[in-house]
């Protein structure tokens, strides 16, 4: 019994001692991971709306191109997209700075932008890559959700004299959320896990920080388990929050059931 107790106290002492000095950097890294995910979520949702509307344009070639684009992105590894954007963006800036001419048959268009700083921000690249990844999956969900709203809603709003924009924002979107939420929240969980990839492009996120701590402490197992638990905790907490939001979005259906 005493040996058991000694073992336990020694174990906790050892754990507390190993944490000393590394708690704060880990917390900062976690906040970077979280902010990266949240910013990508907002940008990605916006992009998803753009993709969905482009995919449902009545001019078919644009719709096909958009579908081809989203299909291609979905078939590529996430790591490849992150690394390609990180490496491709400076090249694009150099190209813009040097200037190039677009031959347009009878005339040609020269594009040249003076760029002072070629050092791109890795955080920005991370947001670009992650929001793109989120958007290509979310646009699929949104398209399904829009299809689930019957066309009668549009017609009814038109009869009431609402403009198309007002109909879209006040009538269609509120109804669409409950169809879109399960898919969107699932992709949020995927996005959260994809943030680990940005450690490949020099962002000091949770993964990178863990690597740094391991280089000093030589305890890879302990620290990777801790990183894993942090990701797990974030996932579980966001799942709980999602459940609440989903419950609220179905609120009016529940009250209807109660009355029956």
């Amino acid at each position, binding site marked *: 019994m005493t040996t058991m107790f000694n073992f336990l106290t020694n174990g906790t002492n050892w754990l507390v001692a190993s944490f000393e000095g590394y708690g704060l950097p880990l917390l900062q890294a976690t906040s970077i991971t979280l902010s990266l995910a949240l910013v990508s979520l907002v940008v990605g949702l916006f992009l998803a709306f753009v993709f969905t509307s482009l995919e449902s344009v009545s001019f078919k070639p644009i719709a096909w191109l958009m579908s081809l684009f989203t299909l*291609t992105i*979905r*078939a*590529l*590894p*996430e*790591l*490849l997209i992150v*690394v*390609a954007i990180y*490496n*491709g963006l400076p*090249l694009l800036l150099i190209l813009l700075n040097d200037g190039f001419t677009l031959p347009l048959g009878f005339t040609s268009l020269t594009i040249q932008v003076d760029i002072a700083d070629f050092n791109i921000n890795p955080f920005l690249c991370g947001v670009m890559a992650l929001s793109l990844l989120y958007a290509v999956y979310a646009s699929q969900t949104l398209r399904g959700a829009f299809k689930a709203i019957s066309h009668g809603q549009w017609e009814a709003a038109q009869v009431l004299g609402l403009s198309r924009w007002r109909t879209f924002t006040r009538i269609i979107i509120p109804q669409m959320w409950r169809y879109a939420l399960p898919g969107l929240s699932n992709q949020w969980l995927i996005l959260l*896990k*994809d*943030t*680990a*990839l940005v*450690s*490949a492009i020099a962002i000091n996120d949770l*993964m990178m920080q863990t690597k740094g701590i*391991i280089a000093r402490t*030589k*305890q*890879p*197992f*302990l620290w*990777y*388990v801790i*990183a*894993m638990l942090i*990701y*797990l905790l974030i*996932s*579980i907490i966001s799942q709980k929050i999602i459940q609440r939001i989903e419950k609220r979005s179905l609120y009016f259906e529940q009250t209807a059931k109660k009355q029956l």
Partner: protein
Amino acid sequence: MSDNFFYYLQIISKGLPDTLSLGAAGILSAGILAIILTCLLSLNHPIMNKAIRAYIIIFTGSPLLVQIFLIYFGPSQFEVVLSRFPTFYAMLSSPWFCAYLALTLNSAAYTTQIFYGSLKAVPLGQWQACSALGMNKKQALKIIVPYALKRALSTYSNEVVFIIKGTALASMIPVMDVMKYSNILNGEYYDFSIFIAAGLIYLLINGLLSIIMRIIEKRSLVFEN
């Protein structure tokens, strides 16, 4: 430009054996493990169910990259203990094996969710029909699991593509796959067409796989029409 492109393609395709072997081995063993776990879950053993649920939460709740790093870099903390089991330690020192193990465990967790979901979606009448014929639970599972698996195929084909995409993460530990070769080339030449070449290869693999999965799905659901 095009000469360079074909040169890049040539170099990058040296990584195909590792990518394909990781993908194929991962898909096969994750599928088998998922079928076993699905059957175990359907037996409704309280302790075993809790254990399997915990496994699923851990492996679906954390990034694949952390799992790969944990399995590849983690064991070196216990070098003294592990060096007593040389064969086991040698296996855990091989990057290919670690990537394979992580991919399998990760994907099996997702696949179990898919398979078990479709098993639960099988109408109750099927189970009742089995028990009416005097079958016990095991015999009924033999009938119902294949049926549920066929229904799960369309969702499962997404997971197969995810495994292939996941193999790219193995390049972060020294596995010489397509992604690794393109990273090496990029370090040397710094040219965007390297990534286009790598993307083309992944596109081809995933496109072919999706087509194959669709054919299998059509064949196996023929009885429903």
